[in-house]
């Protein structure tokens, strides 16, 4: 609680980085110059702590400047915000993208999660270990190092890398697919990489790109001459109208903008953008919410909660102000649809988020985006700036006197922050530890005020609903699952990517759209719904992809993950990786999850190693599942065993089935 500072002093650059977020200090007590005035009074308290929510942005600034959060920088930041340094250290050390020990300015985060595993991530990591050294190993004065990473949301282009870079003008970027040669070249000879992809390369890319809407990087493929050694940045596809091959289904979503230049507001408007916002301003909040209710829109983040109910609760809450939060912290392994939406259609995200603000009576929206999504962040940043300039955000939207603005908050690399209350904690500048519910965010959310938290895909669905009316939207799909759904197809398929299909299509049809199993190998299993989802067998492919259909089959659509494993994949290794993922990402707040995820991984490793009593281990896994399901605070612990047990019970893993 107290402000116990160490003697460490921030250097000029660290101060400048922090002042860039907080503004210059106003007195000697905030780390400024001691003068006669500041020896006689100081101002702080509630006002200073009220800016606690700037802790994470400031930590990002320091990390981006120095490559780590030094004790001196932490002291200065804490003096400015009157946050105890011990507590701020607890925050900084919670997030994977912040380092509280010195590390090289360039860190290559290499995904070794399940989707990348199907595309050679293990071999890639093994080569790096052999030729560069184990993950994280590097002298602190070396210019580079590498780390293993959980899913980076680039599963369609696996294997993926995220390059975190500190120093002036050095931005983070993602790249996929990457080869061992590229990563090694980057690690050994870090040069200022050219972030721009030349037009000719883009054109070459376009010609051979699978004609899906999947975001494609411009990384050098093995069959192309590399312009330079090392990894270069993944960039969204250049405009290519002809490439938006509709999967022969009626598109209700605004993804049809995807072929356009995502950075152009004019082009977005030319294609009908911002008509929904104009309609929303005409309709007013109750009518908007009525349309959503008619459309039976449900949340696309995984929980499938009726959006109209959530918005209505916030809109009618007496406490003020209200907030809306866009959950763009897409971290469920195998999920990348929101990234695609943000990179390819940022204005649709902003427009629908603005409508959410109007419907919920909020004047401030926070868009919490995954820290590993640098390109989506850049796209949204510039889109928000344009929207502000054109009066589509700000104090007088479309000249109607309505106020709404959006602030982007970048996550720090923590899966748990996708849980909505952990996300709120994170925006408030704290460790991303989920809250007990109730109260629900609609009652007491961000800063204790009524808050609507919505996933990116959910928001974007508001646009077709307002454009065509709720009932017409509801005509697509089934009675209970209306509209279309984005599925993230990855793993062993010919054409991985984001597929927008109406609810009701069967899993088999979806796989057919994606070109079927790679190299016509035999299908072994499909992971439906993500790491918190369930495995299904090849004989279960007629599961209808609807909320109720998945539920009836004992599975879930979750965040729309459809990850395909052919018979060359070691499912045991996949399951262990899922267990390791949950062990790593458990926030540690509640015991069942903190301990349960560790015990679960241990039991699985014993099983893989050939346990003498597999039936005992499986019984233990069942008990752990029960305890975590019953007693964990949030969904992470409650579903940490779901996929693993489904592999055992549905696929027969460790019982003679699967491998």
């Amino acid at each position: 609680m107290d402000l116990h500072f160490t003697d460490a002093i921030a250097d000029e650059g660290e101060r400048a980085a922090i002042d860039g977020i907080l503004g210059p200090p106003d007195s000697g007590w905030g780390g400024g110059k001691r003068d006669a005035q500041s020896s006689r009074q100081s101002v702080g308290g509630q006002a200073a702590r009220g800016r606690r929510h700037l802790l994470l942005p400031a930590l990002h600034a320091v990390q981006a400047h120095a490559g780590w959060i030094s004790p001196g920088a932490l002291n200065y930041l804490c003096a400015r915000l009157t946050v105890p340094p011990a507590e701020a250290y607890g925050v900084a050390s919670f997030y994977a993208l912040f380092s509280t020990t010195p590390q090289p300015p360039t860190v290559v985060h290499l995904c070794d999660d399940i989707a990348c595993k199907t595309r050679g991530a293990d071999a890639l990591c093994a080569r790096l270990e052999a030729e560069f050294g184990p993950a994280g190993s590097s002298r602190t004065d070396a210019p580079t190092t590498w780390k293993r990473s959980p899913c980076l949301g680039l599963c369609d282009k696996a294997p993926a890398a995220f390059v975190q870079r500190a120093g002036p003008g050095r931005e983070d970027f993602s790249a996929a697919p990457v080869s061992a040669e590229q990563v090694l070249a980057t690690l050994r000879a870090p040069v200022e990489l050219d972030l721009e992809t030349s037009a000719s390369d883009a054109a070459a890319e376009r010609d051979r790109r699978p004609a899906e809407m999947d975001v494609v990087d411009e990384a050098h493929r093995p069959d192309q001459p590399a312009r330079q050694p090392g990894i270069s940045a993944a960039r969204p596809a250049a405009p290519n109208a002809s490439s938006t091959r509709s999967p022969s289904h009626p598109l209700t979503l605004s993804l049809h903008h995807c072929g356009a230049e995502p950075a152009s507001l004019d082009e977005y408007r030319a294609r009908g953008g911002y008509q929904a916002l104009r309609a929303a301003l005409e309709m007013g909040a109750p009518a908007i919410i009525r349309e959503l209710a008619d459309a039976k829109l449900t949340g696309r983040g995984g929980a499938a909660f009726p959006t109209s109910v959530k918005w209505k609760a916030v809109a009618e809450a007496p406490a003020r102000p209200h907030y809306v939060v866009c959950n763009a912290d897409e971290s469920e392994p195998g999920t990348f649809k929101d990234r695609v939406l943000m990179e390819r259609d940022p204005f649709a995200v902003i427009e629908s988020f603005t409508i959410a603000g109007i419907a919920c009576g909020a004047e401030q929206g926070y868009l919490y985006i995954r820290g590993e999504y640098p390109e989506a962040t850049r796209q949204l940043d510039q889109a928000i700036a344009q929207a502000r300039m054109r009066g589509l955000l700000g104090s007088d939207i479309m000249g109607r006197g309505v106020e709404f603005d959006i602030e982007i908050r970048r996550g720090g690399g923590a899966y748990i922050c996708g849980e909505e209350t952990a996300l709120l904690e994170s925006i408030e500048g704290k460790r991303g530890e989920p809250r007990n519910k109730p109260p629900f965010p609609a009652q007491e959310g961000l800063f204790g005020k009524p808050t609507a938290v919505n996933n990116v895909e959910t928001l974007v669905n508001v646009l077709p609903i307002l454009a065509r009316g709720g009932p017409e939207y509801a005509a697509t799909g089934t009675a209970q699952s209306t509209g279309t759904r984005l599925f993230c197809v990855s793993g062993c398929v010919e054409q991985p990517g984001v597929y927008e299909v109406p609810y009701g299509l069967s899993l088999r049809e979806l796989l057919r759209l994606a070109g079927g199993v790679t190299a016509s190998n035999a299908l072994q299993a499909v992971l439906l719904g993500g790491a918190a989802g369930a495995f299904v067998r090849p004989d279960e492919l007629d599961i209808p992809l609807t909320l109720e259909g998945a539920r009836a089959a004992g599975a879930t659509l979750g965040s729309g993950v459809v990850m395909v494993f052919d018979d060359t994949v070691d499912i045991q290794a996949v399951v262990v990786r899922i267990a390791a993922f949950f062990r790593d990402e458990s926030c540690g707040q509640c015991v069942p999850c903190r301990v349960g995820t560790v015990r679960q991984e241990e039991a699985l490793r014993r099983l893989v190693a050939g346990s003498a009593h597999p039936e005992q281990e499986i019984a233990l896994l069942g008990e752990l599942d029960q305890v975590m399901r019953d007693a964990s605070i949030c969904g992470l612990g409650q579903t940490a065993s779901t996929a693993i047990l489904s592999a055992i019970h549905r696929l027969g893993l460790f019982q003679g089935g699967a491998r």
Partner: protein
Amino acid sequence: MIVLWGSNAREAHPIFFHHVLKAIRSGAKLYVVDPRRTSSAEWADRWLGLDVGTDIALSNTVAREIIHAGLANRTFIENATSGYAEYAASVEPWTLDRGAAVTGVPADAIRALAHDYARADRAQMCWTLGITEHHNAVDNVLCLINLALLCGHVGRWGCGLTPLRGQNNVQGGGDMGAIPNKLPGFQDIEEDAGARARFEAAWGVPIIPEYGWHLTQMFAAMERGELNTLYVIGENPAQSEADGRHARHLLEGLDFLVVQDIFRTKTAEMADVVFPASAAWCESEGTVTNSERRVQRVRKALDAPGGARDDLDILSDLALRLGHDWGRPTAEQVWDELRSLSPMHAGMSYARLEALGGIAWPCYDESDPGATFLHGRLWETDETTRGPRAPLSAVGDEGPRDLLSNEYPLRLTTGRRLDSFNTGVQTGAFASPMRNGETLDLSPEDGARFNVAAGETVRIVSRRGCIEAPVRYDAGLRPGLAFMTMHFPDDVDVNDLTIDATDPKSGTAEFKATAIRIERLVERSQ
């Protein structure tokens, strides 16, 4: 809103401060008025760094600003206070500019305090020794009471005037009559004949209807040769008195000195007879009363070591030797006698104290839940139930007695640190990683001005004595202000420096304001 005026509660009252922090977390504003920017001030919405001893000037300026801004509670003033006109006239000269010039606090900070305090829905005014260890201590307290009355911040739940007590049972000591002018339950010895009669009937001895001497008067009486026998229970005056050398000289001149304590204090070493006592918090039964007037049970957990005995046993035996057989009363029997004599404790049986987890007085009978706040009568609409008016008191500003000069240019103030207590009798026995021994704390600017390095031992000279201590830099101090504790009198007796200028009304010495200079012991080679 909470005002800590002359209080570093974070370090001196850590348990109380936890409650302050709870209030802060639920949105309360905190103002801290203190010459030093203390660890309490770090939590404050605003800290006002006034010059030592200018509290009355600051209060009067705040009052004038409240009155001129139309923020005074006229209804409360008219219904429940007296002396407003005179008071208002007395603060009239204290414009913000004059207040700023005298106190050193910027005018906008004074204005902010005035407006926030007056506009607060509920406000607590808390103070400690920063207010009372001055030669005009009572006037200092009165000037804070004035502010509360001016705004009607008394007699309502969540409002009030809160002197924070230095020990868990200081309040209880006064309540039980360990003050020279009151019988237990604050019944006046001179004025309350009915109370005297009740005590005389219960005790079978006459009660002399005269006030006794308080501590400072006792030392004066020693000096005059009128007091030559002293029985000291749980005090260490040899080290806790201002102008310590003089105090020890007087103690040495006594004919007979008895000390009853749980430690062998410096005073005990001078004593003719020492009664080793048991530790009240774990080796005896009884009650304590904390700052919020809450009486709580204390239970015996351990037998006292060696020949140490319960205070009650020692006193009963002593009475027997002096010819009064009190028997061997238990703590509860003594308490029940008190309840029969002190109306405000009447309803507090041990059973009820246990069941309710303590009761705040007054508690007049066994159906009375106690009182969470006092003086609620002032808000009664009926004039007779409202009772006597609360007086506003015009108080003049008087700076510290020990004036700064070219010879003594630095203002030394004293206080506590979190992990030590007073003269260290109770805390010196255990180690603390945060305890660095006595230091002379200086601002970094003064360190440069006097060319002394951190850690360098210097001589500190006042008009009464000189001591040596190492220098420590504290950025919470401004140029011209120095700070020391009184925790390590065996090593560095800070009270050799302090002035024994005492407040004639309360008898408290001016520990908080000493003029000093620093002398280097070794000239540093250039």
